[in-house]
């Protein structure tokens, strides 16, 4: 089955001579040619989308695992990396069983149905609603990678103090209560906020500003508040134990993010290129933004600042990447760098919560900012996916003369905030009642690596 297209194609292409004999009728010849061209198009698009799927997985492991792992204390590095790694396994199984169906199956405005339970019917044929030139399986596995990294982002907020078992339960419930619905609302056919497929409030979110970053960032804030501060915070020093790991992680996130954003074009098209460029430009400008803000405010441009800025830029450009020009991307990135710098260094200290690795300061704030600026800078010159009846591209954002989009973006953001905040709070309560969410004090002191996993990361004596 799966090999069919390819085999047909090979037959047609490799035996051009024979072809003339088999296909006598002109129209049949056209149809055959069309199908070989379709296969060729699919080869290019599928190659790109499979690569993007791999890149997005690489963002979680080793990317995020390293970025977060380097920022915690030595005694928690494995536990922290594990929070990312195990989601690569857990969410995959959820997705196969029912997650994909709930997110992308047809359902109501809020959640998909059970059409694709156990991936039933998700095969080699494209699903034209989402991506007409690649196997639906490719689309499915690509989207899976998003469902993996989103909860992993939250783990930055409760690092160094959450029970491993509670983390697992939390993540499973969170996928069901927050991620699947949100993904459906924004990207699923008929979703409430889907701008392209019949949503009530068309919200522009190219690669997950609301679905991924606002949800994870806001949930992170709730987790930080609910779990409370780490023992000894902020009096004891809790410096990052290995910033080299974090730099590697940030670089791999940057590289992987091309798959995240440019892959969201769902084809190897000029739109993919445009998103690729916007992504890169956003990250670059945000790096400079954060660095300059820090240089001015603290007197020295730190490396941790530069890489944090890069991530902030990547977050903010995510929803915008397929809708804005390269220069707008520079602007959005720069703004994100400066804003997130202040969120993390000033606002956090004012409120005094312990968002250990700044999951809210970067993803919550950056995601919200990016979602709103998308409403400002999105332009039909970059993305003409929305057309009026006569086939003329509709204006997208404020710069196109469509201020209403900013409102739609606000609605999308508000729903994401609300769903994430309420959902997370409920889930935390449930987990706490069932098994307790916070590690015992002595376990926290000993470190997660030893107390939860019975290992130490570094054994340099021997």
């Amino acid at each position, binding site marked *: 089955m799966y090999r069919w297209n390819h085999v047909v194609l090979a037959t047609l292409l490799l035996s051009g001579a024979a072809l003339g004999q088999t296909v006598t009728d002109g129209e049949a010849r056209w149809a055959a040619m069309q199908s070989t061209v379709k296969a060729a198009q699919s080869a290019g698009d599928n190659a790109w989308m499979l690569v993007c799927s791999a890149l997005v997985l690489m963002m979680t492991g080793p990317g995020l695992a390293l970025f977060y792992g380097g920022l915690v204390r030595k005694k928690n590095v494995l536990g922290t990396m594990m929070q990312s790694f195990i989601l690569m396994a857990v969410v995959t199984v959820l997705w196969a069983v029912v997650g994909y169906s709930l997110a992308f199956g047809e359902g109501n405005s809020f959640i998909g149905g059970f059409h694709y339970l156990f991936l039933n019917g998700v095969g080699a044929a494209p699903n034209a609603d989402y991506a007409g030139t690649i196997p639906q399986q490719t689309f499915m596995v690509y989207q899976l990678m998003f469902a993996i990294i989103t909860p992993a982002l939250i783990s930055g907020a409760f690092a160094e103090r959450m029970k491993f078992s509670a983390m697992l339960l939390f993540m499973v419930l969170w996928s069901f209560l927050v991620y699947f619905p949100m993904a459906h609302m924004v990207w699923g056919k008929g979703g409430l906020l889907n701008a392209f497929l019949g949503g009530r409030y068309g919200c522009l979110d190219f690669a997950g500003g609301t679905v991924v970053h606002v949800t994870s960032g806001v949930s992170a804030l709730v987790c930080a508040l609910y779990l409370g501060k780490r023992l000894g915070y902020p*009096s004891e020093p809790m410096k990052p134990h290995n910033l080299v790991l974090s730099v590697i992680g940030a670089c791999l996130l940057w590289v992987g993010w091309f798959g995240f954003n440019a892959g969201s074009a769902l084809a190897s098209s000029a739109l993919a290129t445009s998103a690729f460029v916007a992504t890169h430009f956003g990250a670059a400008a945000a790096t400079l933004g954060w660095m300059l803000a820090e240089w001015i405010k603290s007197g020295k441009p730190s490396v941790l600042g530069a890489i944090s800025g890069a991530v902030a830029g990547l977050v903010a450009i995510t929803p915008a990447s397929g809708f804005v020009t390269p220069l707008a991307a520079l602007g959005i990135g720069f703004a994100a760098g400066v804003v997130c710098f202040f969120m993390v260094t000033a606002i956090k200290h004012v409120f005094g919560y312990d968002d250990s690795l700044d999951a809210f300061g970067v993803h919550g704030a950056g995601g919200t900012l990016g979602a709103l600026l998308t409403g400002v800078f999105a332009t039909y010159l970059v993305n003409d996916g929305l057309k009026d009846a006569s086939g003329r591209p509709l204006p997208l954002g404020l710069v196109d003369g469509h201020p209403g989009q900013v409102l739609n973006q606000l609605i999308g953001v508000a729903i994401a905030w609300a769903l994430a905040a309420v959902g997370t709070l409920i889930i935390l309560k449930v987990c706490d009642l069932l098994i307790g969410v916070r590690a015992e004090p002595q376990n926290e002191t000993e470190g997660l690596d030893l107390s939860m996993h019975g*290992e130490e990361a570094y054994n340099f004596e021997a």
Partner: protein
Amino acid sequence: MKKIEAIIQPFKLEEVKEALKAIGVDGMTVSEVRGHGRQKGHKEVYRGQEYQVDLLPKVKLELVVADIRLPEVVQTITQAARTGKIGDGKLFVYDVAEAIRIRNDDRGESAL
């Protein structure tokens, strides 16, 4: 002059340092050590291979002080480092024959 050698819990270092600063003791040398005593260690398992780890991370503090300050400093350290649980550590005192400040060859208590 006396040398104080205190083996304490790593997470107590900050507190002890503050306490010493409060009584005006500045000079000290700190190192990472691993210790073994009554405190039970822990088990680690790597692919089914078990290791009983009985050397636990500790911090060693070394201070040379004038004889006259000894009791005060000792008390400050023990109080600040105490949790009351096994593993709190030990404090040893030794005689010092001579102390020299390398920078300017000051000797004796004036070198501290």
